């Protein structure tokens, strides 16, 4: 299977600040990939590079194209929602549909109309009259109506209330995702997308510290919760991170000896958010 996105030594500097530091990763077709990292880790910069919004150093191919040089052609097959509420305030919903239908060869008007029909939004309203959640619904309808191979979402639910966030992800999974599509998504709220992801990329200080499918994570990482008296035995197995929780100690292991761990306590696969915290605060070594 050929990679949809292939980055090697991807680097972006803003003056003295290095936002991306020789990042290497790839995204396969048909996956839902979460790009996860703390603030300022380079998430947005990576997405901007992938979408051709910024120049960069190093190698980067998206759908076989160089994004910055070929953004226009790339946007035939890729679409994105970068941040919430970027639809201009003066734009009417119907005009937005007409416009995208007029300029985008792969836009399906009937699909946008069907998606909007499920909402409370009427076509004559301007974006400035809509709530943040409604604007997101319009943008998502416009984006999902494009027959794109790659959809990139950068903090698509920032500032939305919990109902709007849930509706957003439900629409994404139920109405959009199929095996011809690939989604790359960043968000602060990892817990919310945890069960729709197939792959994760952890990014820290401009470098990719983990590039893995969820299946790989399940075989490669394990966590065990042990009572305090067994902590020394558990530490002998060389965890890379531990934390105290309700009188117990949870220890995280890479390439664990599962039999040994099972003797010490209850073994489980760490959740993405736990693994993220463990990886980033326990040190990636």
């Amino acid at each position, binding site marked *: 299977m050929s990679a949809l996105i292939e980055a090697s030594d991807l680097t972006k500097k803003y003056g003295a600040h290095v936002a991306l530091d020789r990042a290497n990763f790839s995204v396969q077709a048909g996956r839902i990939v979460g790009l996860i990292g703390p603030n300022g880790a380079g998430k947005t910069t990576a997405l901007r590079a992938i979408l051709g919004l910024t120049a960069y150093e190093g190698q980067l191919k998206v759908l076989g194209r160089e994004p910055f040089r070929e953004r226009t052609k790339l946007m035939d097959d890729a679409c994105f929602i970068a941040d919430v509420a970027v639809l201009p305030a003066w734009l009417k919903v119907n005009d937005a549909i007409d416009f*995208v239908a007029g300029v985008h060869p792969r836009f399906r008007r009937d699909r946008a109309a069907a998606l909007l029909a499920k909402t409370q939004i009427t076509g004559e309203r301007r974006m400035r009259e809509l709530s943040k959640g409604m604007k997101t619904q319009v943008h998502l309808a416009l984006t999902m109506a494009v027959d794109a191979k790659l959809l990139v979402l950068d903090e698509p639910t920032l500032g939305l209330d919990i109902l709007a966030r849930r509706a957003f992800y439900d629409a994404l999974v139920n109405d959009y995702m199929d095996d011809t599509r690939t989604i790359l998504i960043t968000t602060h709220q990892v817990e919310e997308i945890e069960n729709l992801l197939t792959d994760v990329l952890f990014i820290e200080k401009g470098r990719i510290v983990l590039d893995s499918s969820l299946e790989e994570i399940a075989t490669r990482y394990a966590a065990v919760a042990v009572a305090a008296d067994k902590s020394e035995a558990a530490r002998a197995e060389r965890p890379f991170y531990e934390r105290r929780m309700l009188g117990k100690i949870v220890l995280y292991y890479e390439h664990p000896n599962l039999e040994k761990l099972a003797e010490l306590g209850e073994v489980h696969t760490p959740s993405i958010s736990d693994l993220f915290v463990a990886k980033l605060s326990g040190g990636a070594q």
Partner: protein
Amino acid sequence: MNTTVWLVRREFWENRAIWLIPAVIGALLVLASLFGKVNLNLPAPLPAHAFGQLFMVTVAGTFFAVMSIYATWYLLDCLYADRRDRSVLFWKSLPISDTTTVLSKLGTALIVIPLVYFAAADATTLLMAFIVSVRGGSTIGAGVWHLDLWVQLQVLWMYLIVTTAIWYLPLAGYLLIVSAWAKRAVMLWSILPPLALLIAERWFVGTHMVARLLWERMVGWVPLAFHVNPGDGLWVTTVVDNDTIRTPQSLWSFLNVTGFFSSPETWLGAAAGAALIIGAIQLRLRRTEI
């Protein structure tokens, strides 16, 4: 081509002032002709023909002056506005190149907006001529209803649009660069660099080449594109009450077509304008944040 049409349509959605301002000016002028004084007592009564010319050029000039100010503001604001409301992130998610986008805005400012004002000026002139000739009687009526005068007016407008579009290309390119680059206060940023250059030259070198160059570009179009004083054969002399009045035979007498299009200043400026526009496109490619 289709994309360009949508992009221009989009400019009309975003900037309703493109047609609102000329509509308001037209409405005001029509109102003035409805309720204003029409039995003009000119000190030396002009020949009817000359009155018609004066009337048409005054209306056209009013629209043209406002249009120039608006188009300048539009160019300064258009790319900045996309970054200010972050909608640039939406526009760039569509398969439209930045070159097409920037050129659509340039074309809107230099061709589309002038055409809108042209149409508004024509409609206003027609309505006013009709009202004034009904209210003012045959003297005025005789002045404004000349087919040749109307044809001349159309040609004059087209000439204005084409020559200003070429002559002010460097100014347009510069404004687009400021619009694509500035983080705030586009107006200030458009004035500061040339002003700083001008003052620096005056202080450190003692000359004022920059000021001369800028002034040339601002007003140089007039003496180049027009005969300020057409040749003797092009005037009509009328004697009214012992006063000799010279009026131009035709509005075309003033147009210096060969002078404008053969001047190196015209084409050097256009080349500089093209370079600045390429610069603006490069900035649009790279700058998405405010």
